[in-house]
């Protein structure tokens, strides 16, 4: 009960935040502008592929920063005390944040992709091969975003300074999430999508487990 309530609450909060406005509207717009002003550089790449790429990479970075700095700031301002004095599991607080931001990211990527696909359908760039690549990058993006979000929470739980959390997130957060495609560079013949999905789910579950244990041990 408390997880559902907290998740819907957090979703409402993040959905109204400026970061999400940037993700949902700013990044697709940016991709369109790139395509519009410098189409030659993209070598005929369809807009749907471009926006999926832009949103999942920049979105991942923005979300890790947002999650880590929000948690640090809320810890420092004793925000969690008012929740924890009520019959609320500590894990629910952490999971609600993770799920809300992750869902916002998935929505951002979906919006961008749908708009991109519509645009490509009108301009005649919707080629089957590109659709496959776009779908593949989407799977990788969504898997890496899950890891990114869990790492953001890890930094938030571990660190007590907002600037430190932001720096760690920028330099480590999104880079660590690219680990999911690293094995494909060394082992040939691996199914990239399956690998991304498997590693995404496994690593996210492990990191979230660690986050919950650490948050449970915290002194408020």
């Amino acid at each position, binding site marked *: 009960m*408390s997880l559902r*309530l907290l998740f819907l*609450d957090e979703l*409402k*909060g993040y959905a*109204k*935040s400026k970061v999400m406005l940037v993700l949902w509207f700013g990044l697709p717009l940016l991709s369109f502008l790139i395509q519009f002003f410098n189409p030659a550089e993209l070598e005929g790449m369809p807009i749907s592929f471009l926006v999926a790429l832009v949103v999942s990479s920049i979105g991942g970075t923005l979300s890790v920063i947002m999650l880590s700095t929000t948690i640090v700031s*809320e810890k420092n*301002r*004793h*925000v969690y*005390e*008012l*929740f*924890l*004095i*009520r*019959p*609320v599991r500590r894990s629910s607080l952490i999971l609600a944040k993770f799920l809300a931001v992750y869902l916002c990211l998935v929505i951002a990527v979906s919006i961008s992709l749908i708009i991109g696909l519509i645009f490509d359908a009108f301009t005649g760039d919707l080629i089957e091969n590109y659709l496959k690549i776009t779908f593949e990058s989407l799977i990788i993006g969504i898997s890496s975003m899950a890891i990114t979000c869990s790492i953001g929470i890890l930094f938030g739980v571990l660190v007590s300074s907002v600037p430190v959390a932001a720096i760690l997130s920028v330099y480590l957060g999104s880079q660590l999430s690219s680990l999911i495609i690293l094995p494909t560079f060394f082992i040939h013949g691996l199914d990239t999508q399956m690998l991304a999905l498997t590693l995404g789910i496994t690593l996210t579950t492990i990191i979230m487990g660690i986050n919950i244990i650490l948050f449970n041990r915290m*002194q*408020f």
Partner: protein
Amino acid sequence: MSNNTCIEFQKVSKSYKELLALDNISLNIQKGEVFGYIGPNGAGKTTTIKILVGLIRDFSGEVFINGNDIIINKKELQNIIGYYPQEAGFQEWRTLDHAFKTFGRLSGLSSDQLENRVQEVLKLLNLSEERFKKIIHLSGGMVQKLRLGQALLHKPQILVLDEPLSGLDPQMRYHFKNIIKELARSGITILFSSHILSDVQDIADKIGILNQGQIKDIGSPEDLQNKFHIGNNIEVVVAENTPLCEGLDDLSEIEYVNNIKSNKQLIHLNSEINIDLVIYQIIEMLREQKCKIRNFNLVKPSLEEVYLKYVGGENK
């Protein structure tokens, strides 16, 4: 433990690494009692409170609420406690209404109860006009009202207030004190900490003085004033341009005399004396020296003096 005991701490200790924050404290608070918890910064007041509301879990000793162990029955007990934290913040993107509704639901209120209760609490705190304002746009005083409001939403049986009156302007303090008194009259058990001794004296039925993690004394304000061995004082004010009485400290019952102003002296009497006899002797002495008395007044020690006697020396 009697049937009327609401909160009971039994030999509770808590350390933060090397620092012993609470040292084997035991205390009982009766149902419907207003318990004022006073002590200097770092004495352990907030630690005691955080243990009671379940925010600190690793402590030694036992704490009971209505006879139930707070660790074993944490979930059930959380719904009967309202907690006003000293410094807790809010997620500022929420409106006041949204914050109240979230906390109300988390405290177990149904949707039907919630709307009525939010309105009642907003009215009680004069916050109805601010209901749909974002928290980020509220003044500091209003945020303190919000803190109190969230503690009252679910009609708790026990209210735990950590420094509820600090930082409030006089008008708001008066308002808060009235609310606390009103809640006390309705039978809620209240534990509150404060630095402002006059407020504690004004509100509390019983006071606990905490210093360096130990409870130094517990009693009603009057008990503490009487029990503690501070002699009564006599304030003597003489007419302008009239010399003060001399030689008063020669009397055996008088501990010392402070000449506070050119026309005012404070006579500190030894404890456990025959007050009537010593007053008679002082008046006789004043008459002999032909002092023109404007005011002669027996002054009991203030709670502040009692408090300083307990904690002042050790903190110097």
